[in-house]
């Protein structure tokens, strides 16, 4: 069997880079220190201040580990071998969203080399810069603008032009960069390759944020629908996922999770399994229990037979009354996102005040694969192969968990299945590491379906109150948003292994819940959670930052302690808040008998929002009229259409969706016939990749809107497999899908992966209202809830 390789395509690496890596062994940092420096004679004057601002790469590498390859150095991002091949290093992972392909296109484009000559090394703490986690639609903003990977490539190309000018004795203005070569614009015979110019040296250059980026009008690789190079491997069963990593001498582990939420370990009877075939060890650390066996099926059987006694655990809040429980729970941590301080007064003056409450359940990432990782912990050193979204975060918290020095821990990203946020990836990596440390051999752990689903960090439940005032002309004059949402744990980041189940069981506390009430007044504008509706001015610190026109505004969030683990799930908070805002906007439009599109446009100021709304409406051939449609029958099937839109995180991408639905009035069954989604993500790196993401986001949103809900009883989560957690299978009637891409080359690149999903539940809810006059204010829209709304 194949040993796990340090990199995915060793043979494709730039020749110089591969040699250097071999010399360096464990770390590329040695390579970066050891290679000869390239002397580039061109001015870096005038940009030092900007450089200072750009030197740290979270998404951009803020808080990066001290020994990360520095984000402000070109060599941290690219190496050109003596064979002309380019190796690029990135912290932004391929999670199935097409990010590797887009980044290879970026490198090929900016560096002017053929796409086939680019190899990408993804997320390995021995080689790639610390870019935090791959999440939240941050990869494009981080790497496709003027810093990090994009900036490094542009800086390198300019350096090659300068060196080429000197080498060829031709002014830079008369030179061009083509296919890894600097050549005269007028005489193609006068040329020199990058490899010749570099002569095996590294760049030794700071990333210049002022380096000229190629305008989109000149793109030949970026912006094109290039197919993913990993597609053929995936389709033929040869791609190596984390699940396929095999280390020499590897054993197999399984974990035994508590019998109930909050249960603690009382007793383990090792004799219940010690005679079983393949048994290696029972491992206990505080409340963490696991077993190691020679073969995976043996580990499954041993874990099933291990006699473990747990305390009963506390009684969970009743699911039936959970949304009220959120509203009444103390203490709270309160956050004001925006507050004009006159909302109550304006509501008092309004001709009409409309109120509604929206409810959103905990939902799960529900990855198709049960999470899996391989760890090899030997003495003071550890190497793990993990599907984590943040290798540097994982390294820091693994070091805490194992009691090792962070610099002795290497985390290598290997793709798991689609995660959509923090699924079981980090927890299972801790599981494997704890078990490996206990036996001193490599251990692979693959969670059971139940362990994946019962203990992951769920997407947030929400109770949301919306209030708005309308004037006599039917315009909104005040909007008040107040929400309650439970939290426990999160991503482990650099310091909280206890933010996920394994770290907690092994004795680490989750990030402390710090009560705070009342909330301080906002001093900086942030709409990261889309708590602020698109239709208000978003006035903070003396300026308007919002996408809308309504001046009287308040958005207030109360966080409370969750009984279950929580964490980011594709479009965290944004999806739930947008469901409330956009459903409520529809209710307001209906109240004043306005067309829902026209009513939105009337209250928006942000041109990019206006454009996506218009594009979606046009794409759907929108019929302007108020909702609901006049209902002609009380039986049979009613059809309708609804619209929704979002300025994702306020300014990180824009989307609007029109959904067309049919409602079976007798059964309450919903069939979505068509979805038209318009997306503006700035300049588009790969239109086919963006379409794929948008189609997937739209349908995933549909599944979450119609069926997905975490359920529990007095002590346990009861949605633990695909019979009890309802995901739409391949066999449902897939709606006709139209993705309208608004390509903008004059603005920075924004996020794209989470924009489509954010608007789905509200678009469908609004379409159901249009069809039937029944308003759905609780996700998921099950047939029972639809029937209740129809009769209500």
């Amino acid at each position, binding site marked *: 069997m194949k040993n796990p390789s340090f990199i995915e395509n060793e043979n494709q690496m730039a020749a110089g880079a591969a040699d250097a890596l071999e010399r360096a062994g464990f770390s590329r940092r040695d390579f970066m220190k050891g290679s000869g420096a390239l002397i580039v004679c061109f001015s870096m004057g005038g940009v030092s201040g900007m450089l200072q601002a750009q030197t740290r790469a979270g998404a951009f590498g803020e808080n990066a580990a001290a020994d990360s390859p520095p984000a402000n150095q070109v060599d941290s991002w690219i190496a050109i071998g003596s064979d002309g091949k380019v190796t690029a290093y990135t912290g932004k992972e391929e999670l199935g969203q097409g990010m590797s392909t887009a980044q290879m296109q970026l490198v090929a484009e900016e560096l002017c080399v053929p796409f086939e000559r680019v190899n990408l090394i993804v997320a390995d703490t021995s080689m790639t810069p610390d870019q935090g986690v791959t999440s939240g639609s941050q990869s494009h903003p981080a790497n496709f603008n003027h810093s990090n990977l994009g900036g490094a490539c542009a800086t390198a190309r300019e350096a090659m032009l300068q060196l080429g000018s000197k080498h060829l004795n031709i002014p830079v203005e008369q030179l061009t960069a083509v296919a890894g070569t600097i050549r005269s614009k007028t005489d193609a015979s006068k040329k020199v390759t990058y490899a010749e110019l570099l002569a095996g040296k590294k760049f030794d250059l700071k990333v210049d944020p002022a380096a000229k980026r190629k305008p989109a009008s000149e793109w030949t690789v970026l912006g094109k629908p290039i197919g993913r190079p990993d597609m053929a491997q995936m389709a*033929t069963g*040869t791609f190596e996922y984390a699940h396929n990593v095999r280390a020499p001498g590897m054993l197999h582990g399984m974990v035994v999770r508590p019998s109930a939420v909050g249960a603690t370990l009382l007793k383990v009877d090792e004799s219940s399994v010690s005679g079983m075939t393949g048994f290696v060890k029972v491992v206990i650390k505080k409340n963490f229990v696991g077993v190691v066996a020679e073969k995976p*099926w043996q580990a499954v059987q041993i874990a099933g037979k291990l006699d473990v006694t747990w305390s009963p655990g506390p009684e969970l809040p009743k699911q039936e009354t959970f949304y009220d429980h959120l509203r009444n729970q103390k203490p709270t941590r309160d956050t004001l996102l925006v507050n004009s301080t006159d909302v109550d007064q304006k509501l008092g003056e309004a001709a009409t005040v409309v109120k509604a409450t929206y409810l959103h359940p905990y939902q799960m990432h529900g990855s198709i694969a049960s999470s899996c990782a391989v760890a090899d912990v030997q003495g003071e050193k550890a190497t793990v192969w993990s599907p984590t979204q943040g290798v540097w975060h994982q390294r820091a918290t693994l070091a805490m968990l194992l009691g090792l020095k962070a610099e002795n821990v290497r985390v290598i990203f290997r793709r798991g*299945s*689609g995660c959509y946020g923090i699924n079981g990836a980090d927890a299972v990596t801790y599981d494997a590491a704890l078990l490996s440390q206990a036996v001193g051999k490599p251990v692979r752990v693959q969670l059971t379906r139940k362990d994946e689903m019962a203990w992951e960090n769920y997407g947030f439940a929400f109770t949301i109150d919306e209030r708005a005032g309308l004037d006599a002309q039917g315009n909104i004059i005040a909007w008040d948003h107040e929400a309650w949402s439970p939290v426990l744990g999160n991503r482990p980041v650099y310091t909280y292994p206890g933010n996920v189940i394994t770290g907690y069981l092994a004795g680490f506390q989750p990030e402390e819940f710090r009560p705070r009430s009342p909330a301080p007044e906002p001093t900086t504008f942030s709409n990261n959670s889309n708590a602020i509706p698109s239709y208000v001015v978003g006035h903070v610190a003396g300026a308007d930052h919002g996408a809308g026109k309504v001046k009287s505004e308040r958005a207030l969030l109360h966080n409370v302690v969750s009984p279950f683990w929580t964490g980011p799930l594709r479009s965290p908070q944004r999806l739930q808040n947008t469901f409330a805002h956009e459903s409520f906007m529809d209710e307001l439009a209906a109240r004043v008998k306005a067309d829902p599109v026209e009513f939105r446009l009337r209250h928006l100021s942000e041109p990019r929002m206006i454009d996506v709304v218009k594009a979606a409406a046009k794409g759907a051939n929108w019929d302007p009229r108020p909702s609901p449609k006049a209902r002609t029958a009380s039986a049979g099937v009613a059809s309708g259409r609804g619209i929704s839109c979002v300025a994702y995180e306020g300014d990180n991408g824009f989307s609007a969706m029109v959904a067309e639905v049919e409602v079976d009035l007798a059964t309450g069954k919903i069939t979505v016939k068509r979805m038209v989604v318009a997306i503006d993500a700035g300049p588009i790196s790969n239109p086919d990749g963006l379409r*794929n993401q948008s189609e997937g986001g739209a349908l995933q949103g549909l599944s979450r809107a119609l069926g997905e809900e975490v359920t529990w009883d007095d002590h346990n989560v009861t949605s633990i497999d695909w019979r009890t957690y309802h995901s*739409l299978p391949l066999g449902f009637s897939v709606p006709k899908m139209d993705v309208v891409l608004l390509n903008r080359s004059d603005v920075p690149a924004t996020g794209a992966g989470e924009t489509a999903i954010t608007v789905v539940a509200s678009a469908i809810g609004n379409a159901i209202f249009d069809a039937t006059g029944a308003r759905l204010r609780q996700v998921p829209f099950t047939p029972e809830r639809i029937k209740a709304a129809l009769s209500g």
Partner: protein
Amino acid sequence: MSFLSLKVNGQTHSLDVDPTTPLLYVLSDDLGLRGPKFGCGLGQCGSCTVLVKGQAVRSCITAVESVQGVEIITLEGLGTVEKPHPIQKAFIEEQAAQCGFCLNGVILTAKAFLDKNPKATEKEIEEGMSRVLCRCFTHTRMFRAIQRAKQGMAR
């Protein structure tokens, strides 16, 4: 432990395994195959699908002893990166995957279905795929790829 004979992708293997072991574990751990994948271990999602005598079978709930000596085909037994099977080619051409983890079950279930129902309507194909999950929701492209494969296989 006892020796079992398993015929996978045209090769016969003699294996010393617990006969109650699910086929999936033997394929991925004893034979090192990457096509069949562990999704749920409950036969609910389809990721572990293999073809047994041409039928789509969920290998995570199939005891290895029950398929001794019969012909088992995994995703890597259909075609290669250089020479993909027409249905694999259709998925590549349609770029019909995101994370790709479910692709094994999607392609093999579709192949078994199309082999039996070469003239299936869109609705019938949808029903044929009704027990397979893709959590990235690449459904639109996957159905397009299956249609493309159907047309290719009909020619």
